[in-house]
């Protein structure tokens, strides 16, 4: 064996760091070069605001002026007036955006659910492979779990705590087994919502975090729900996003999932009290499946929610200015939407409910195409599963056969006022079996029918029917008074339900 001389050793010590440094920069440099060569391809920025209901946005006709900046953006974009999520909480709604599949196909039905393992290859990142730098960041830990499932197709995936003020979320250190780590650590051993499953580490971490808070070592900021030990400031998140967008190799597809305006509604102090206007929203009767919140509590919560939306809108305005000033919008699609809405009426606060009323499921969708200068209104119903085929079409990619959505009007198709949109809430069902208890809704034309299936409180399948054009607040149930119409829509929704209500096909794809 040849001996390593002192000279050889010194050479090695010099070349190793140089080689390492070059290896760090070279791929980026090559990528950037490739980006310049592909500059005919537009960038895509998909911006999700968690739990942002179209109902509370002045852009969508809400009484309070909550979204002046979204309105400014809408002047140069397509605004979809009747856009729906496919469900009423993060996991199924986000999964539909990312996969272009309805909940009964992707099967991410549960609060911490995951996309069916044989559907993981069917996602927007995979469909944009080759030629696009695919970037993803979600503040919502549940959505990050979904992104982890698609990790093989994502070039850059940031942890949920990025740009945050403080985090003790241990599962983020287990990047290579993150989904297991999330369930075991965040939701069991270091559980903040229930007794921690680890006597030594769990209690110590909780006490340590609370002590840091008490002594001011954790800055006052917005906490995550379930009190995951992670706090953030909204403006810092937006600053971080602006910074990231400026350095991504082009062309890029960036999925950015902001946690705000999800509860807890924590607007900055400048926004507190801006809606002390004495205005009262329409009071609606409580629902048999509601949690019994009083109208007074709900009105207070709505005020906080509206303030928070105004705060989010202000930050969005800064982002919009930045994108305009840097010229990014000239060669980028900017899509603003939400994964689901929020209900602050009928005795319900939030979105952990089986109900499917409009504030829970109708979400904003605003899309500006590269260089678009004029606004356009789209009134026919659309769904979040439409985003995947539309984006692929927009960047000149073939739409895969598995995609279940349609092209969005104004971006490849014409308006279809009679388009049928289906929504499903089935969080208490196994992802692998038939649905025994669920809420299923159909929006068709100006009507919406809701079916409560297997709900013990009713004892049988129960239906509600609304005319959304003459009764947008869904106050008058037409199911009894319009029997012919009710029968027609009932048979349609039952047919569809029977078609989709099959055990998950493990072999199918």
């Amino acid at each position, binding site marked *: 064996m040849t001996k390593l001389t002192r000279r050889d050793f010194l050479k090695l010590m010099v070349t190793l760091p140089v080689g390492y440094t070059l290896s760090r920069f070279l791929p980026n440099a090559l990528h950037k070069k490739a980006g310049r060569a592909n500059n005919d391809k537009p960038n895509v920025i998909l911006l999700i605001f968690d739990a942002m209901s179209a109902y509370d946005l002045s852009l969508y006709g809400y009484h309070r002026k909550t979204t002046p900046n979204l309105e400014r953006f809408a002047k140069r974009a397509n605004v979809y007036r009747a856009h729906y999520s496919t469900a009423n909480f993060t996991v199924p709604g986000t999964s539909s955006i990312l996969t272009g599949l309805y909940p009964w196909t992707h099967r991410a039905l*549960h609060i911490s*659910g995951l996309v069916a393992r044989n559907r993981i290859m069917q996602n927007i990142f995979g469909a944009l492979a080759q030629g696009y730098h695919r970037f993803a960041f979600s503040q919502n830990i549940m959505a990050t779990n979904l992104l982890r499932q698609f990790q093989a197709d994502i070039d850059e995936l940031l942890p949920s705590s990025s740009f945050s003020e403080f985090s003790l979320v241990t599962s983020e250190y287990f990047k290579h087994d993150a989904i297991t780590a999330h369930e*075991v650590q965040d939701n069991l051993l270091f*559980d903040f919502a229930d007794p921690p499953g680890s006597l030594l*580490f769990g*209690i110590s971490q909780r006490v340590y975090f*609370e002590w840091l808070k*008490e002594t001011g070592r954790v800055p006052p900021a917005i906490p995550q729900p379930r009190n995951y030990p992670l706090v953030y400031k909204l403006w810092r998140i937006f600053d971080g996003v602006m910074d990231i967008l400026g350095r991504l190799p082009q062309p890029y597809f960036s999925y950015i999932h902001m946690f705000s305006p999800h509860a807890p509604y924590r607007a900055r102090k400048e926004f507190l009290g801006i809606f002390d206007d004495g205005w009262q929203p329409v009071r609606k009767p409580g629902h048999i499946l509601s949690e019994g919140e009083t109208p007074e509590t709900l009105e207070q919560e709505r005020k906080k929610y509206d303030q928070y939306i105004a705060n989010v809108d202000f930050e969005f305005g800064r982002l919009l200015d930045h994108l305009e000033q840097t010229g990014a919008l000239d060669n980028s699609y900017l899509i603003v939407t939400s994964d689901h809405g929020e209900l602050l009426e009928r005795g319900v606060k939030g979105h952990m409910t089986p109900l499917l009323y409009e504030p829970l499921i109708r979400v904003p969708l605003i899309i500006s195409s590269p260089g678009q200068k004029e606004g356009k209104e789209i009134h026919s119903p659309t769904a979040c599963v439409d985003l995947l085929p539309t984006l692929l079409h927009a960047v000149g990619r073939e739409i895969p056969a598995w995609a279940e959505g349609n092209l969005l009007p104004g971006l490849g198709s014409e308006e279809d006022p009679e388009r049928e949109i289906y929504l499903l809430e089935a969080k208490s069902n196994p992802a692998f079996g038939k649905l025994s208890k669920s809420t299923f809704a159909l929006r068709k034309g100006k009507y919406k029918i809701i079916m409560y299936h297997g709900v013990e409180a009713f004892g049988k399948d129960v239906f509600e029917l609304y005319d959304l054009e003459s009764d947008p607040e869904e106050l008058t149930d037409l199911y009894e008074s319009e029997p012919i119409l009710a029968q027609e829509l009932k048979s349609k929704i039952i047919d569809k339900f029977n078609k989709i209500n099959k055990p998950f096909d493990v072999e199918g794809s």
Partner: protein
Amino acid sequence: MKIKEKLPSIHQIAPVLAVTAIMHYGWTTYRFIQKLPSWLLFLNFREILSNYAQTLVFNLAEVLLFISIIVVINLLLPRKLFMNMFIARGSLLASLSLGYLVYLALSIGQSKLSDFPWRIFQWAPLVTLVIFLLAIFLPYVALVRKIVEDLADRAIIILYVLVPLTGLGLLLFLYNILVNLV
């Protein structure tokens, strides 16, 4: 006196380790079973197994840390105050202090998220002192000492299950990380 002479033998450590393991693994398994119905809704068998493997690895770390603390206490105290009745004192210290931690975990879990129950920790120093004194002095009562030592001795059988199970858990845990790493 050399430190080595004050270290308990494997025959002394095993019963205390068994008591510690029963408390840690037992509590985590109890919480795991409470989570199971929810996991059955969206995780497959392999994923649930991976979850269990990870809890076993954390339990192993906890047990090793806890037993190390007991050994350090043994090293710090005079021989006649701990080492002479290591099994009884160690087992009592483990079961009483871990029992207290179970109480704390339940109290934290029942409190509101926004209102951490600091009041339950006000008594913690006193409770810790009492547990410590009980662990040291109770074994002077021969009957107590005999009962504790007999129970701890019988508890060793659980190690025959937990040690191989944790070994398998550790392998699965490492496999999951390595496979995803590659």
